[in-house]
């Protein structure tokens, strides 16, 4: 950190203060917010330099870049918050190419009136997530919008990473005969969010599965050189992501409902609300499509990692001009698993 010239006579009141328009105006108030809140917690050398950009060397090779906007409400939910979610989400998007994530940027749009205590809580959470993933937030931006024009906080994160030679993971590489693997139980995140939404409250111990998956991916890539596809099933759930992959690769898929891991508590909550766990969001899971010969080694590697304990083989890729994702139900019948149309809403019928 720079020399000890006290630029701000009064410290930022993070207990009782709130965001106001001056925090976004580019003046002293904004500088103080950045220094005493963002830089203080996100604390790393590049960010500490205080420039509008971060300067760092890169190795020759192929780079990956990814960006995400985070608008989740409520800001704090069982097992996570918007800050950790933002960090994990972008790390994961970068990692799904097989890349090692290097740095993150974070742009905040704050709503006038947001309690500074809440903002600090979010930033601290981001800092913890970034530190444990070893992927620092090296540059950022802050803007403030008038009350009523934002949902508390919107965060946009961008991440970059590097991909090793020979790694070629892409959504269009699924081939007939490939195995479809999932790294763990589905539906946890979406249900955790629902349980804290107004007018839907129910009590449960279910927590969001929000997690950074880059070390899991690194283990997988080390074990098997030629993974075909990796993707994290976030919005729209497992079903939507599988449909995307099937569509991109021009193939069909056949799943086995019995093999798909679902936490019994998530199952119960979904039954209660009339939701299908296949369409419920996940924030700490990945889908892997690989040659059938590599499936067992990958499963072993995944299960040895804390974020892959419940990894399972859930189906296989086949030829299909229509690109249908089909499933044999646990009941013994067949059904098509379609894309999600719009948001899945709780129903009474």
């Amino acid at each position: 950190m720079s020399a000890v010239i006290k630029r701000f006579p009064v410290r930022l009141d993070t207990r009782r203060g709130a965001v106001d328009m001056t925090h976004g105006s580019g003046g002293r108030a904004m500088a103080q917010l950045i220094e005493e809140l963002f830089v203080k917690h996100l604390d790393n050398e590049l960010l500490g330099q205080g420039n509008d950009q971060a300067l760092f060397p890169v190795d020759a090779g192929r780079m990956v870049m990814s960006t995400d906007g985070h608008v989740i409400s409520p800001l704090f939910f069982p097992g996570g918050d918007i800050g950790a979610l933002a960090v994990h989400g972008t790390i994961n998007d970068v990692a799904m190419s097989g890349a090692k994530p290097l740095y993150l940027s974070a742009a905040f749009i704050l709503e006038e009136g947001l309690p500074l205590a809440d903002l600090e809580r979010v930033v601290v959470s981001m800092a913890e997530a970034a530190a444990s993933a070893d992927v620092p937030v090296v540059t950022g931006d802050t803007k403030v919008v008038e009350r009523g024009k934002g949902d508390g906080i919107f965060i946009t994160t961008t991440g970059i990473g590097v991909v090793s030679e020979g790694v070629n993971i892409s959504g269009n590489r699924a081939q007939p005969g490939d195995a479809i693997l999932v790294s763990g139980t589905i539906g946890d995140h979406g249900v955790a969010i629902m349980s804290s939404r107004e007018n839907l409250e129910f009590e449960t111990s279910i927590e969001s599965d929000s997690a950074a998956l880059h070390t899991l991916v690194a283990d997988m890539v080390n074990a098997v050189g030629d993974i075909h596809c990796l993707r994290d099933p976030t919005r729209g759930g497992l079903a939507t992501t599988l449909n995307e992959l099937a569509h991109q690769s021009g193939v069909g898929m056949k799943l086995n409902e019995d093999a798909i891991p679902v936490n019994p508590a998530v199952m119960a909550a979904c039954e209660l609300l009339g939701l299908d766990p296949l369409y419920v969001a996940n924030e700490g899971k990945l889908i892997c499509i690989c040659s059938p010969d590599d499936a067992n080694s990958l499963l072993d590697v995944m299960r040895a990692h804390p974020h892959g304990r419940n990894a399972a083989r859930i189906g296989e890729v086949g030829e299909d001009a229509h690109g249908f994702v089909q499933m044999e139900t646990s009941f013994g019948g067949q059904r098509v698993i379609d894309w999600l149309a719009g948001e899945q809403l709780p129903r009474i019928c």
Partner: protein
Amino acid sequence: MKYVEEFRARGLARKLSAAIAGEADSDRQYNIMEFCGGHTHAIFRYGVQDLMPDNVKFVHGPGCPVCVLPIGRIDNAIALAEQREVILCTYGDMLRVPASGRKSLLKAKATGADVRMVYSTRDALKIARDHPDREVVFFAIGFETTTPPTAVAIRQAQSEGLEKFSVFCNHVLTPAAIQNILESPEVREIGSVCIDGFLGPSHVSSIIGSQPYEFFAEEFQKPVVIAGFEPLDVMQSALMLIRQINEGRHEVENEYTRVVTREGNRKAQQLVADVFELRRAFEWRGLGLVPYSALQIKSAYADFDAERRFDVPEIKASDVKGCECPSILRGVKKPTDCKLFGTVCTPENPMGSCMVSSEGACAAYWSYGRMRAPEVVEVKVESVA
């Protein structure tokens, strides 16, 4: 989950499948109408049709309260929501149903109407308590299962003195709808929609009992089996219907004995009778005007009747041109018979309620059944289309 998983067991499914195949007479067709949208949903979600022999087919009926609500009533709800002082509370099912002018409650919310999704009338009551300065209108839909909760809510509002809470009532009655289908020209005279038997609704029956169906079985000489809504219940009930049909019986049988009795839930029935009375007629999408088929709030509770508190004009709105929801709801046509199905009308861009509602025949077919070949059952409608 107790009382759920046991009724979805694969092993038992196979046994029942063999039993049905064994008892169904290969020389004839069995068309079973499952009246209730919940059954439609279960059949598709679990792939029950795959476990049935080819000559046993399910015909999907109009038992989806979202699907049968006429567009005009949704227009009314949107108009209510667009009034500044109103908070409109609705079940999630109604949010995306297309109304006139390509509007919907969800779109109205996007343009500033205060529309809030609730899981229960209890949540709506809470909103009324928390916002005593606003008019809180609950958009009530549903068959006899969902009506008692609305009755309890209205009485609760009265006892708490929640003066600005009201209900926009669109509750409809099952027996009236069944009667309407059985009396329709296609079924009675032309005989082109051949329904051999009915799977009776599970939860409506838990409230009204099995007794109201005895009239239909007798009058129309069709067997009725009240079926639970788990897939094994559906299969067992189909088996019971097949037996009745084979033996030339037309009785009301109850497969869902763990919840349904002959008298039903008397306490719930009394509460409903206290708060609601019959409307002389109510328009159903697809069925037209059906006499004594819907409920309105009694004058004793007039303060809580949105239709008396607000100006709620009758709006005659028509379906999108080419939309076959009316025929599909009556079991006269299949989703694939509709020219809009899969072309203009998709789950992302629904034209009618059959595609929006999770139990609408079109949505179910789209989401679960498109990989199957078109069904064998031919609906010979000889009238002018």
